[in-house]
């Protein structure tokens, strides 16, 4: 049941290891010595744009059947291999309602390595509030060189789209961000959601981070839903998968 998945996914990433027998297999021992870089990504945008669905899709490979309004901040993570380096993306899925934005989530802006702005392509108001979200980031003194990306979600609802790619692209250009239009729901585009985060992972990996990047000693607990994915990604293929809808701006600040 989807609910179960949502409710247990976090536990997996940080298992209650006290009650578990200590790992003993040789494989685990080797894992323990792997150093990984950890990148912290915050996902923001209005309520109901699909932040929870997108992060869930990326981390668990599925569209959640039953999402709930996010209260506060939820945490998800996924480990990837980028150019044969293991890196871990930590996604902080925040609550969209304004009252939470204003007083609750500041704590989670600290030390982030990237920001994902999400709007709903079927709802103009969510696009209109993007400047506020950008202000919010600026207010938290996020370094301007931190990668930021813009994601238009719910592209599967073809006949309801009200924000044209053109309009969104202009906005993205003006703010020096790459734009991605996608759908957390459409299984056909699921790869696309992966590709978005892969792109980010790639940028992060190759960037000289302005913030200290955490190094984690992986304790050998590779949770069930944290896939170790080998990144077989190349720009051209990705672009074509994109059907020309998104476009990556060269010289973007990351």
């Amino acid at each position, binding site marked *: 049941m989807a609910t179960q998945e949502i409710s247990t996914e976090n536990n997996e990433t940080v298992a209650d290891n006290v009650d578990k027998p200590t790992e003993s297999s040789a494989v685990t021992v080797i894992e323990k010595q792997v150093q990984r870089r950890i990148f912290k990504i915050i996902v923001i945008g209005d309520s109901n744009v699909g932040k929870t669905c997108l992060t869930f899709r990326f981390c668990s490979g599925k569209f959640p059947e039953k999402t709930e309004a996010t*209260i506060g901040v939820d945490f998800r993570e996924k480990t990837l291999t980028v150019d044969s380096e293991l890196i871990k993306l*930590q996604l902080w899925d925040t609550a969209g309602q304004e009252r939470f934005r204003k007083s609750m989530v500041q704590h989670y802006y600290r030390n982030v390595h990237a920001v994902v702005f999400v709007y709903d392509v079927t709802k103009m108001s969510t696009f209109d509030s993007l400047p506020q979200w950008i202000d919010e980031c600026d207010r938290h003194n996020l370094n301007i060189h931190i990668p930021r990306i813009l994601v238009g979600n719910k592209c599967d609802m073809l006949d309801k789209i009200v924000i044209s790619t053109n309009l969104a692209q202009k906005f993205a250009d003006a703010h020096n961000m790459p734009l991605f239009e996608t759908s957390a729901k459409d299984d056909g585009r699921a790869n696309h959601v992966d590709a978005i985060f892969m792109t980010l992972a790639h940028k992060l990996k190759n960037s000289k981070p302005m913030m200290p990047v955490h190094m984690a000693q992986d304790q050998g607990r590779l949770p069930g839903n944290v896939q170790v994915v080998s990144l077989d990604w190349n720009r051209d293929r990705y672009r074509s998968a994109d059907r020309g809808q998104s476009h990556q701006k060269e010289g973007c600040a990351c």
Partner: protein
Amino acid sequence: MSSGESPVDKQDNVRPNNLNLSTPKSPTVASRRQKVAKIRLALINKPVDISALKQLAISKDGLVSDELRKRAWPKLLDVDVDNIPPKPEPEILQGHRDYNQVVLDVNRSLKRFPPGMEENLRMSLQDQLVDVIMRVLVHRPELHYYQGYHDICVTFLLVVGEDMAFALVDKLSQNHLRDFMDDNMDRTKHMLNYLYPIIGKSSPDLREFMEIAEAGNIFCLSWLITWYGHVLNDIRQIIRFYDFFIACHQLMPIYLAAAIVLYRKKAVLATECEMCFVHSLLSKIPDDLPFEKLVSQAGDLFIQFPPKTLADEAMMIFEKSKAAAKMQRRAIAKRVTKGRFSTILPNGGSVIVSVTVWTLVAAVTAGVYAVWKSNDWGWFS
């Protein structure tokens, strides 16, 4: 629900569980019967014996069945169920500024309904849920909707039906829930600031660990503002907590949060001393915690460290600028943390002293209606 049958009440019929079948007089069944009798007695009294009801709501298994809750909750909240204001016209409900957000949240509340419930019934309950929420908001223009309020309302709806749910939540929204319903969350945030002082009094090392990890307190935000409705999977457990919270001080959910964190101390200390690990460990509540024990520990914590004794410290946290000093301290401390905590602290004893339910009732409810409103826990203007 007009039928009077609550869609979630599975415990109305006292029936022995399988394990106890061989024992003719199962202690659970007997004590449950006894409790039912006590609750009925308290309700029959004229006037209703509120203080006995509170004790019964707090003590093991709370008010036992939804049939009894329907009668006891209004008494505990001093709600006149015979004079519930009628429902306004749909246009009025739909014209409210928070209507759209409410609908979005109720649409995403499937998890709150018992699994296996018929879809038609669920959809009609979801419509009623929107109405319950909107009725309160329309009735009290000064209140602001917050995401999570729907988690509270759905619990009442499932137990007592639409009209009474409205009346009860309307009352609660002026008391226990009032501070969540400003146009901002400053007061909610301040309530959360009580968490670390309570934990610290009981287990200084755990507090220190969590502070060094910068775990924050947002992991229990939903616990507080939904009375655990958002985070627990079992509706029966949620309803039992509601008995407890209705009978207690508005900060009790924070004391329960502290009890839960303290209970999981070993697991916390065993995680990496990093915000994300501690946050994600604590933000979910395992299904198999000994909830009755935790309820009574929350009460014990409340007696030992009542809100007033923590107010100054909570205020300090509120005012403290978190930045530089902490970062520095963290950088230094982090290097030594892991080893230090795991070697020194396994027996770092928690000091929770047990008190009786009666003492607790006396402490948490003394003049409670008078103090709810007046922020007796040290909020400033």
